[in-house]
C-alpha cells in the first residue's frame, strides 16, 4: 500500500462530499432523536440543513468529471459527472420539498413520536439514491438499490395503524425483494461472463465479438427487471398503484419523483456505459448488437404510457390516478431514452426537472385537501373549485401541465421529447405518444370537471389553508408557469448535464 493509493482514497472521499454529508446527517438525526426525544420540532430543521449542505456540495462540484474509488486501472466504483450531479441535485431538491410536505402532512404528524426514524429513513433513501445515480459498478448498483428499497419499504408502511399502509409495505417488500433478487441473478451471470462488475470494464470486455450473446442478453434483461421496477415501467409496474395509494402522500410523492429519477439515472448510465460502441457527432449512440435496447425500450415505453393512461381513465382515487399518470410519464420519459441519443437524455433531464415540480405540486395539493377532508376520493372534489378556489386553480394548473398543454412547463417537457423523437425520425412512435397525450386528457380533465363543473350534493365546506402551505404551492406553481414561457435556463442546465463520464 503506497501513499499514492491513500491519496487517491482521500480524493475519492472529497468527491463524495454530498453523500458523506447525508450520512452525517443521518447520524445527527438519530442522535437528536435520541437526545431530545420529546421535542421533534428540531428534526426537520436538521434535515433541511443537511440537505442544503449536500446541495451546496453538489453544486460546488457540479461539472467535475472523474471516478471515485478506483478499481484497477482507469475506472472506479463511482462516477462523479454532471449527469449524476444533476440527478443528485434533483433528488436533494425533491427531498427538501418532501420534508416540508411531511411537516405539514396530517398522516405524518399523527405519528409524531416516530418522526426520528421517519427522517432517518428518508435520508437513508436519499443516500441510496445518490449512490444509485453515480454508481458505475454492479455491486454498488445492487447495494444502493437495496438501500433505497429497504428504507422505502418501511416508509411505505410508516403509519402502521392504517390498514392500507401495512398492505402497501408488504406488497412493496415482496415485489421489491423479488425484483432485486432477479436483478441480482442477472448481475451474477454478467459477472460470470465477463469476470468483472465494473460497467466500464464490462463494456471494454464485451467489445470483442466472442461472448455468449444469449446469456448476456438474458442477464441484461434480468437486470432491467430490477431497474424497471424502480421506475415502474410496464410490465414491472404492478406494485406502483397499490403502493402509491397505500403509502402516506409525502412518501408517494417521494417515490414518484426521487426514486424514479434515481432509477432513470441508473438505467441510462447502465445501458449507455455498458453497451455503448460509439457516439456519433450528432450525439446518437451506436450500441453493441448484443441487446436491441432501442426497440426494446420503445416497446416498453409505449406499453407503459398506454397502460398508464388507459388504466388511469378509471381511477376515482386521486392518489391512484396520479400513480397511473406517473406510470404514463415514465413511458414518455423512456421515449427519451429510446431515442438513444444525447439529445434524448437532454429531453429526459428537462422533462424530469419540470415533472418534479408539477407532480410534487399535484401531490401537495392532494395532500392539503386530504388533510382537511381526510379523503382522496374524486367524488369529494366536487365543487372544490368554488369552495377553495386557490387549491382548485393550483391543482388545475398542475394537471394541465401534466397533460402537457401550453403555456405550462409540461408542454415544454413533452415538446423536447417529441423534438428528440422527430429528429431521430421516429415519427410513428411520436404519433402514438401524442395520441396517448390526448387520452391522458380524459382523466386529467375529469378531475377539473369534478372540481369546477360538478356541484356537490352538499355544499363543500370552504376550508382555510395555512400561509405556509399557500407559499409552498406558489413555490411549486411558479416554475410550472415560468418555464412554460421562458425555458432557456432549464435547457441550459440540461445542456450542461448531459455529459456522462467517459462518453
Amino acid at each position: 500500500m503506497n501513499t499514492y493509493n491513500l491519496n487517491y482514497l482521500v480524493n475519492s472521499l472529497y468527491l463524495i462530499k454530498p453523500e458523506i454529508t447525508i450520512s452525517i446527517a443521518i447520524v445527527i438525526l438519530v442522535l437528536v432523536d435520541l437526545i431530545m426525544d420529546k421535542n421533534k420540532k428540531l428534526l426537520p430543521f436538521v434535515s433541511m440543513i443537511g440537505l442544503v449542505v449536500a446541495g451546496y456540495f453538489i453544486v460546488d462540484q457540479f461539472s467535475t468529471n472523474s471516478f471515485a474509488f478506483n478499481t484497477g486501472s482507469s475506472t472506479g466504483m463511482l462516477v462523479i459527472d454532471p449527469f449524476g450531479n444533476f440527478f443528485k441535485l434533483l433528488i436533494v431538491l425533491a427531498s427538501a420539498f418532501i420534508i416540508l410536505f411531511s411537516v405539514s402532512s396530517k398522516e405524518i404528524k399523527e405519528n409524531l413520536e416516530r418522526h426520528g426514524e421517519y427522517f432517518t429513513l428518508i435520508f437513508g433513501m436519499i443516500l441510496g439514491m445518490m449512490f444509485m445515480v453515480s454508481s458505475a459498478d454492479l455491486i454498488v448498483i445492487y447495494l444502493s438499490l437495496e438501500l433505497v428499497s429497504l428504507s422505502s419499504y418501511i416508509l411505505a408502511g410508516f403509519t402502521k395503524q392504517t390498514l392500507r399502509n401495512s398492505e402497501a409495505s408488504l406488497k412493496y417488500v415482496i415485489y421489491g425483494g423479488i425484483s432485486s433478487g432477479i436483478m441480482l441473478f442477472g448481475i451474477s451471470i454478467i459477472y460470470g461472463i465477463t469476470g468483472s462488475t465494473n460497467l466500464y470494464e464490462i463494456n471494454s470486455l464485451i467489445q470483442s465479438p466472442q461472448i455468449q450473446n444469449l446469456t448476456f442478453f438474458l442477464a441484461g434483461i434480468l437486470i432491467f427487471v430490477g431497474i424497471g421496477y424502480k421506475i415502474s415501467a410496464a410490465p414491472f409496474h404492478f406494485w406502483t398503484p397499490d403502493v402509491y395509494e397505500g403509502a402516506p402522500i409525502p412518501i408517494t410523492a417521494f417515490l414518484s419523483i426521487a426514486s424514479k429519477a434515481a432509477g432513470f439515472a441508473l438505467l441510462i448510465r447502465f445501458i449507455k456505459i455498458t453497451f455503448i460502441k460509439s457516439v456519433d457527432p450528432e450525439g446518437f449512440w451506436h450500441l453493441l448488437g448484443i441487446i436491441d435496447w432501442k426497440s426494446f425500450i420503445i416497446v416498453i415505453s409505449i406499453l407503459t404510457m398506454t397502460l398508464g393512461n388507459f388504466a388511469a381513465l378509471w381511477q376515482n382515487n386521486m392518489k391512484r390516478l396520479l400513480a397511473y399518470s406517473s406510470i404514463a410519464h415514465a413511458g414518455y420519459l423512456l421515449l427519451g431514452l429510446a431515442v438513444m441519443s444525447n439529445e434524448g437524455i437532454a429531453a429526459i433531464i428537462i422533462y424530469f426537472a419540470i415533472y418534479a415540480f408539477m407532480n410534487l405540486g399535484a401531490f401537495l395539493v392532494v395532500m392539503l385537501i386530504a388533510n382537511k377532508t381526510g379523503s382522496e376520493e374524486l367524488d369529494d372534489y366536487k365543487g372544490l373549485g368554488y369552495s377553495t378556489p386557490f387549491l382548485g386553480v393550483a391543482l388545475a394548473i398542475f394537471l394541465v401541465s401534466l397533460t402537457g398543454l401550453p403555456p405550462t412547463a409540461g408542454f415544454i417537457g413533452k415538446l423536447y421529447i417529441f423534438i428528440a423523437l422527430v429528429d431521430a425520425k421516429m415519427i410513428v412512435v411520436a404519433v402514438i405518444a401524442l395520441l396517448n397525450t390526448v387520452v391522458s386528457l380524459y382523466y386529467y380533465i375529469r378531475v377539473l370537471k369534478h372540481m369546477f363543473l360538478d356541484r356537490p350534493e352538499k355544499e363543500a365546506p370552504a376550508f382555510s389553508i395555512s400561509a405556509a402551505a399557500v407559499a409552498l404551492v406558489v413555490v411549486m406553481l411558479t416554475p410550472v408557469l415560468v418555464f412554460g414561457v421562458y425555458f432557456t435556463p432549464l435547457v441550459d442546465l440540461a445542456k450542461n448535464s448531459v455529459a456522462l463520464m467517459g462518453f
Partner: protein
Amino acid sequence: MENFPILSFITFLPVVGMLIILFIPKTQETVIKSLTLLVTGIQVIAALIILHGFNYSLGGINDPSSFQFIEKFKWIDITGFSWIGRIKVDYFLGIDGLSVTMVLLTAIVTFIATLSSWNISKSIKGYFLMFLLLDTGMMGVFVALDFFLFYIFWELMLLPMYFLIGIWGGPRREYAAIKFFLYTLLGSVFILLVMIGLYFSSTETLADGSKIFTFNMLSMMDVHNFTANGILSPLNPNNLRLIAYIALFVGFAIKIPMFPFHTWLPDAHVEAPTAISVILAGVLLKMGTYGILRVCYPIFPDITIKLVWFIALFGLINIIYGALCAMAQKDFKKLIAYSSVSHMGFVLLGMASLNTIGISGAILQMFNHGTITAMLFLTVGVIYDRAHTRGLDDFGGLATQMPIYAGFTTLAFFAAIGLPGLSGFVSEAFVFLGAFGSGSIRTLAVIGTLGILLGAGYMLWTMQRVFLGSLKEKWNKLPDLDFREYAMLIPLSLIVIFLGVYPSAMLNLMNASVNHMVKFMMDAKTVYGSLIGF
C-alpha cells in the same frame, strides 16, 4: 406612436384586465363586467388604430419586409446542443391583409360578446377571467408569425373554452365541453407534430450568416430555407410533406369544422351560453380557415396545388350537407350551428380556387360569416332569454309581438342567405366567381350554387315557423328588444349593411396580400417543380 407595440398591446390587454379582475372581490359584479367591457372596447379602438395605420399596398404572406406593425424580439435563444444546433424562438408578431381583417373581426365580436355576457348569473368573476384569457388566445393566433408562438396561442384557447362551455353552458354542457376539448386537442397534436417536423426541415439565416433551424413561419415559406434531408423538406426526394400536410389540414379542419369532423359544433353551440356561441361561431371557426391560409398554403404550396380539388370537394360537401342538416333541425340554435357548417363550406370552396377573387371571397366570407352568425346567435339568445325554449315549432307569429326583434332577425337571415345589398352576398358571389374561374373545381362550384337555394329554403322556413303565422297565446307577453340588445345588434347590422353596399372597405385591405399569395402559389409550381420535378 410610431414604434408603439400595438399588436402586443391589443393581444395582452385582456391579460392585464384579467390580473386586475383577479384582485376585484367577486361581489363587485358590475365593476368586473364594466372593466371587461372597457378592455374589449379599448381593443376595438386599438383595432381601428391599426386599421388607420395599415398600409394597403403591402403584401405580406411570405415576405417579412411587407408585414406591418412587426414586433420581433428574441424570446428563447439557446445556443443549443451542438447536435441540434441553436434553438431560437422569436416573439414575432406582425399582420398583413390576411390577418388585419381577422384582428378587426375578433375585436368587434369580442366586444359584442362582452355585452351579451351581461346577463351571466353564476360566478361572474370566473367567467370574465376565462373570457379575457380566451380573448388573448384568439388575438394571439391572428398576429403570431412564429409557429411556436402561434401554437401556444392556439392551445391557450382550449381550456378557457372548455370551462366557458362546461360551467356556464346548458344542460348537456359537460358532454359538449369535453367533446369540443378532445376534438380540438386531437387536431392540435397533429399540428404540433408537423410543427416539429417543419422545425427540423427549415432553417433561418442569421445576421452572421449561420443557418439554424427555425420556428419562423416566414422562413418556412421560402423553399430555399429547407434543409437537404429534412423529413418535410421538398428537397428531400422521399419527404413526408403530403402526410404532414394532411395532418396539418385535419388539425385546422377540425376547428372549421369540416365534414366529417364537424360533429362537435352543434353540441358545443347548443350548450354554450349565447356570448360563447357568438365567439365560437364568430371567431374560433375562422381560426381553422385562417390557419390553412396562413400555414398550409404558403408553407406547402406544392401539396396545396395537388390537393386543391379535394379541399373544394370538402367545401362543397360542407355547403350542401350542412344546409340539408340545418333544414331538418327542430332546435333554433342547432339550425344556426349547421348553417355555420354550410357557410364555412363557402370559405373552403373559395380558398380552393387559388385565384384572387376566390380567396378574397373566402376571407371576406370569413369576416361576414363572423358578423352575420354572431347576429344570428344573438337573436337566438334574445328569444331564448325570454321564452326559455329554442324549439322552432314552439313559436310562430312573433313578428306581431316583437316586430323590431323580427326586423333584426330578418336582416340577419337575409344576409345569411346572401341577399344583395347585405354583406353575405358579395362574399358568396366572389367565392363562386373565383371557384368557377379555376378550371379544376368549376363543376364543384356550379353544384355548390345549390347551397344558395337550400340556404334560402331553410332560412325562410325558419322565418315562417318563428315569426310568421298567428301568434301563440303563451307568447303574447314577450317584451321586445331592450337597450342592451339594441347595443349588440345595431353595430353588427350596420356592419352587415355597410359591407354589403361598400365591400371594398374590406377588400382593399386584403387585395395586396391576396394577390401576393396567388402570385406566390403560381410561382410555387415552377419553384418547387424545378426542385422536385412535379
